């Protein structure tokens, strides 16, 4: 058992309840090149093309074997471009059901790779360092799958993957073919899924990880199990995608279905939805605002104001429009209030509802002395989370705080400073290969200087990756 001591669990309200709505009838889907780090896409369709599920929409310009495919069958409704004609999304309007296929078998690893690449499933595999889609020409030293999400409001996979245990095990067995090293899957102690995996996949190494967020981040787990040195790579896959892979192996069908949690302080009826990857969240968000079951009818503009919809968790997720699309790797949609308000003397007031890792606000003294009295804090005492930065950007002044929420054998502040000045050699020495921006999310959260740390880390990693190319 691995015990993570450093970290922080944010007490956000609105965790998803154990109930699933079927939202597979959503019509609009998108595959977004922006979900994939460093991808330069080559568009393979034009507006109006008919595609079936698993047909290629665009591919990687640098490696055309890596294909990004349509999650559903239908018509290409729009090719969305941004500044400098950058491809932002390919939107597919769903029309037809999925075709039939037969179970797959693989002669060897190369055959498996070939078939995965062709099916588009390959893009679900990510490699560290850099967080890019795995390079099919390399072999990772290990594959690590995280079996739980410790992030705020994170998806409960024990619930979401109920009844998918067979697919999960099959997927894990398939994954383990891709490495000569170990394939790990990490669970919280006592997780139900762990039992199924233990009893059905002999090839997979099951580990238990205990502790606050980021214990469930795959980066934290890799650092404990098989830290990445320069020149090495470790591959990871989201556990929901592992079941997609398992399902594909069993049926030959590309069926990227997953169960996502829709949660957050602004979700009035937070629970799980069964969707197909890349689904448009508009109707789900509306249903949450109106507190009705999906699908919801029109709702007024006012009630939709000041809602931030995030694909992923509040710490490292991606902001999407209220009619945007779920990200390629995400199992959670968070809805939190925008924080564009002024706060009179905010720096001086006691701050009963302000959450802080430091104990500089009155709120810092509540849970410790009150949690004995209340099982659940009364609403007046629950901290309020929104997108306000709670202060202006300043130089990095305080030290020693990042270390408290950063469970790596890395000096976070020193690494961050190396990234800011762009010293590639120093970055390497300080362990940049072991981290992804999401590993710094908690540092970014607690930073009193309000530095945007994750983009700095991403930029540094990209710089390093391009240097090595």
């Amino acid at each position, binding site marked *: 058992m691995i015990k993570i001591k450093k970290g922080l669990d944010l007490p956000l309200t609105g965790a998803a309840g154990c109930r699933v709505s079927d939202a597979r009838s959503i019509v609009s889907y998108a595959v977004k090149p922006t979900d994939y780090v460093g991808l330069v896409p080559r568009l393979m369709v034009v507006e109006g093309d008919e595609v079936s599920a698993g047909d290629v929409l665009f591919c990687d310009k640098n490696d055309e074997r890596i294909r990004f495919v349509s999650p559903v069958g239908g018509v290409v409704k729009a090719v969305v471009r941004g500044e400098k004609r950058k491809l932002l999304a390919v939107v597919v309007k769903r029309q037809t059901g999925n075709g039939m296929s037969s179970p797959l078998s693989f002669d060897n690893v190369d055959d498996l790779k070939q078939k995965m690449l062709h099916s588009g499933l390959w893009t679900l595999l990510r490699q560290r360092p850099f967080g890019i889609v795995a390079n099919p020409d390399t072999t990772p030293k290990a594959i690590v799958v995280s079996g739980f999400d410790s992030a705020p409001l994170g998806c409960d996979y024990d619930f979401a993957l109920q009844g998918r245990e067979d697919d999960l095990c099959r997927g894990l067995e398939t994954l383990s073919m891709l490495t000569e090293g170990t394939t790990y899957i990490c669970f919280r102690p006592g997780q139900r899924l762990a039992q199924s995996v233990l009893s059905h996949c002999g090839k997979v190494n099951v580990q238990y990880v205990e502790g606050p967020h980021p214990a469930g981040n795959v980066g934290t787990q890799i650092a404990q199990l098989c*830290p990445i040195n320069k020149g090495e790579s470790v591959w990871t896959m989201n556990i929901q995608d592992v079941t997609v892979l398992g399902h594909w192996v069993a049926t030959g069908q590309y069926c990227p279905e997953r169960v996502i949690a829709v949660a957050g302080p602004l979700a009035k009826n937070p629970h799980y939805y069964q969707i197909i990857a890349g689904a448009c969240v508009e109707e789900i968000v509306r249903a949450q605002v109106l507190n009705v079951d999906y699908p919801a009818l029109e709702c007024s503009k006012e009630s939709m104001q000041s809602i931030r919809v995030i694909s992923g968790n509040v710490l490292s997720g991606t902001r999407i429009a209220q009619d945007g699309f779920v990200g390629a790797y995400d199992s959670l949609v968070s809805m939190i209030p925008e924080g564009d308000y002024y706060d009179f003397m905010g720096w001086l007031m006691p701050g009963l509802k302000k959450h802080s890792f*430091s104990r500089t606000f009155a709120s810092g003294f509540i849970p410790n002395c009150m949690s004995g009295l209340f099982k659940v804090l009364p609403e007046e005492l629950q901290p309020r989370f929104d997108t306000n930065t*709670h*202060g202006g950007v300043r130089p990095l002044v305080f*030290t020693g705080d990042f270390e408290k929420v950063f469970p790596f054998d890395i*000096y976070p502040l020193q690494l961050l400073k190396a990234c800011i000045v762009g010293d590639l050699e120093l970055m390497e020495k*300080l362990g940049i290969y072991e981290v992804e921006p999401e590993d710094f999310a908690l540092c970014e*959260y607690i930073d009193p200087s309000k530095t945007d740390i994750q983009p700095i880390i991403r930029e540094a990693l990209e710089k390093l990756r391009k240097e090595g190319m």
Partner: protein
Amino acid sequence: MFDNLRRLIDKIKPNFVEGGKFGWLQSTFEAFETFAFTPNTVTRHGSHVRDAVDMKRAMITVVIALMPALLFGMWNIGFQTSLNAEDWPYELGTAASWWYCLWFGFLRMLPLIVVSYVVGLGIEFMFAQIRHHEVNEGYLVTGLLIPMIVPVTTPLWQLALAVAFAVVLGKEVFGGSGMNFLNPALVARAFLFFSYPTHMSGDKVWIAADLWGTDAIAGATPLGELAAGSLPSDTALDMFIGTVTGSTCETSVIAILLGAIVLLVSGIASWRIMLSVILGGGAMGLLFNLIGANDYMQLPFYYHYLMGGFMFGAVFMATDPVTSAQTNAGKWIYGLLIGLFAVMLRVLNPAYPEGMMLSILLMNSFAPLIDHCVVARNIKKRERRKEAVR
């Protein structure tokens, strides 16, 4: 009322942006605006929610932590004068005298604090404007620390000069708060100490003769007495409570410990540094006890905690996050050495009765080196791990 204030600010704001009528006051305006209202900026990506603590909150927490020492210091200024002055208006020991001590000290401290803030913040605002930065809150603390560690009779013009020197050469030339390597408050103190030694040390600076002016009544500090070769006349309890002579707000160990509690509970200052400074000082004190070559060396080691600015330095000065070591292991080394050197300077060098200031400044300049060594170990570990794979 808040709404009206907000409306007023929004109304006049266009004048203060780039190209506006008062564009050259942009940073100043921003400083006052964000003073009144925490800004409405929202996150754009990455961590969508942020911790409520910001630089202002962190700095104001330190200011709050300084309050016990400041209040006691004010009272003690009056108290010391009341003991020694001939024309103290109230009978000693009465409640009226007690309150008058506080009032007297308040009136003595106020000009020092005002001069420190006006000069320091003036320079900060100017630099922020030239750089088109927002004004950094670091000086909220520095500006209060400086008057708290000087003798009460320090002439205001000297204080102003020291503040200007510290802010410009101690901080702004390096890029402002967060970039400096010496604690600016101690730079100011050192500037005064070396430029105007007659006003900063000796026996005739510590007790104000009257409400105004720089006249002083003779009265040695415990450290002064020791440097002169005699033992301190104050009892340990007096020094612990703080009813002894010394720089304005450094005398009371109790008041400083109250501040330390605020800093430690809020998590603003490093407990590692505080503890290690105290351990380092104690270790050196005990070592001198063992040697025992003279009276000073035989002084019980805990006297070093009670005398002079040791505790004030350990709690408020050594813990400055910018100028201390930044790694946790480094903080231990940094703190231990501060404690060691402070006591060593005190005992072995009678020319500088107080070793704390110099010791912290010395370790400030060594902090980057300490960190470098600590980080180098981590780097080496990583390299070894890589070689082990091969």
